[in-house]
């Protein structure tokens, strides 16, 4: 019980397959996500990331093994609504997650389902829209918003439930750099200021580099795990899994291989700039970059 108090999500020896005859989409996977943690999940197409995400709020149930949301096993049907409220899911395509025809009504959708009284609902909807930075679009029709704005509507619709955890399945994949930046900013703020645990599935290494922990999957299993620095310093291993490393890490790695020794734990552009400056001039960079 004491252990559960710290754990938001836990998967133990989870196996899942979509059809009896097919191969395992999840193949004996175990992982833990602590409360307040920001975890990025990486992996090539079809390695089972989305399947794993769907296990984290009981959309899918494991064929064997167990998934817990806090202390609740996801097989506990009586507490399904509670689990769905605790773990909010955001998917890739915002168009297919928005139900209502007005932004604020969509944000209220989950609360309407949960039977929250009207006054409290008004408050929570407004809060959620403020948190996601879409308050000024509250009366608009979703199809008149940009992709980034729509995705933030979807996020607001989920955080209105006051979840303890947010699972984002390639939530930024359809957005342009500005839209992605805005959504990432929102998610980080929710993690930092409101202590919401985040599990983010992504193909963008720059996004993964901002997480507390990176988990790399391949063929339904976890194959690498650690801080972004630990993972991305193993450039060759990551590339072998058909993934990229952040461009800064890649540049430093290439420079090292070309005979210019560089630190191997660089993942952010600023660090990369500082390291190159130091190597070239032999001095510390003049200002904090």
């Amino acid at each position: 019980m004491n252990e559960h108090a710290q754990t938001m999500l836990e998967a133990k020896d989870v196996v899942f397959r979509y059809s009896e005859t097919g191969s395992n989409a999840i193949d004996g996977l175990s992982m833990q996500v602590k409360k307040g943690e920001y975890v990025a999940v990486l992996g090539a197409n079809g390695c089972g990331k989305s399947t794993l995400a769907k296990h984290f709020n009981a959309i899918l149930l494991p064929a064997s093994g167990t998934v817990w949301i806090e202390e609740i096993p996801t097989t506990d049907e009586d507490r399904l609504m509670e689990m769905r409220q605790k773990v909010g899911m955001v998917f890739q395509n915002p168009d297919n997650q928005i139900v209502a025809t007005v932004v604020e009504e969509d944000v209220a959708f989950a609360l309407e389902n949960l039977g929250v009284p009207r006054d409290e609902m008004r408050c929570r909807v407004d809060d959620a829209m403020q948190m996601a930075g879409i308050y000024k679009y509250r009366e608009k029709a979703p199809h008149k918003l940009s992709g980034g704005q729509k995705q933030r509507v979807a996020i607001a619709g989920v955080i209105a439930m006051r979840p303890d955890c947010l699972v984002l399945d390639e939530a930024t994949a359809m957005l342009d750099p500005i839209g992605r930046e805005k959504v990432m900013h929102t998610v980080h703020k929710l993690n930092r200021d409101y202590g919401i645990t985040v599990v983010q599935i992504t193909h963008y290494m720059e996004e993964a580099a901002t997480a507390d922990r990176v988990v790399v999957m391949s063929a339904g299993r976890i194959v690498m795990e650690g801080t972004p620095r630990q993972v991305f310093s193993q450039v060759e291993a990551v590339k072998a899994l058909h993934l990229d490393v952040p461009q800064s890490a890649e540049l430093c790695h290439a420079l090292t291989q070309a005979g210019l020794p560089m630190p191997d734990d660089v993942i952010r552009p600023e660090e990369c700039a500082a390291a190159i400056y130091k190597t070239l001039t032999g001095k510390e960079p003049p200002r904090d970059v």
Partner: protein
Amino acid sequence: MLRDITIGQHFPGDSALHNMDPRAKLVLTLVYIIMLFVASNPIGLGISIVLVFGLYLLAKIPLRLIGKSLKPIIPIILFTAVLNVFFVTGESEPLVSLGFLHIYREGIDYAVLIVVRIICIIAGTSLLTYTTSPIVLTAAIEQLLRPLSKLKFPVHELAMMMTIALRFIPLLIEETDKIMNAQKARGAQLDSGTLMQRVKALIPVLIPLFISAFRRADELAMAMECRCYHGGEGRTRLKELRMSGKDVWLTVAAVVVFVAMGMSNFLWK
């Protein structure tokens, strides 16, 4: 090109009619239609014309929109009018006789009556959709039908279906546009050829559209489940429909006019 279609034809505004409780509007529109049939005399129909024109002015909806909404059914109006002129027989002598066709006074009266009725029905119901957004209308329908849910009528499901349809219509229109362009880029001739050819050319548009619609439906269902959707049971609503003082006045005024329309039957005789 498909983007130009506006569904439900709603013209946002801030008039008393726009802000009126949609349930009252819906019920009053229905009563109005019934009264058009009850009051089958010149005085009654005169009142109904004045009423509907007055309401258009009140809602600041341009009157030419009535013409626009009538346009598609002009053939029907003409057809019924002509039919009535020639086939209604009266007791008095026919006004005109063309061989076997006789035109009676009653026939002309009846034709005018029907035409005015149809115009008033169209103008009245269009006014409802012009001044009420589809979402609000859906909410009104849901609330009005709620008593039926006791008889196991799926009121909530119906309203949810309407909402989702309204939400996805613009999306699917956009998608149709995209697929049509994609097929045109592959050499499909969608705008030319005989009718048969054009219908055939639509098949490669419709199939991807259906597939994508099903995929969307699948994803939407999952997203709804993730947000704790479990049917209409124990649901609350963000917005409650309320009758304001102004609505009560408008309703009373409308009822007075309706009564006048009904009474006109006695006056005319």
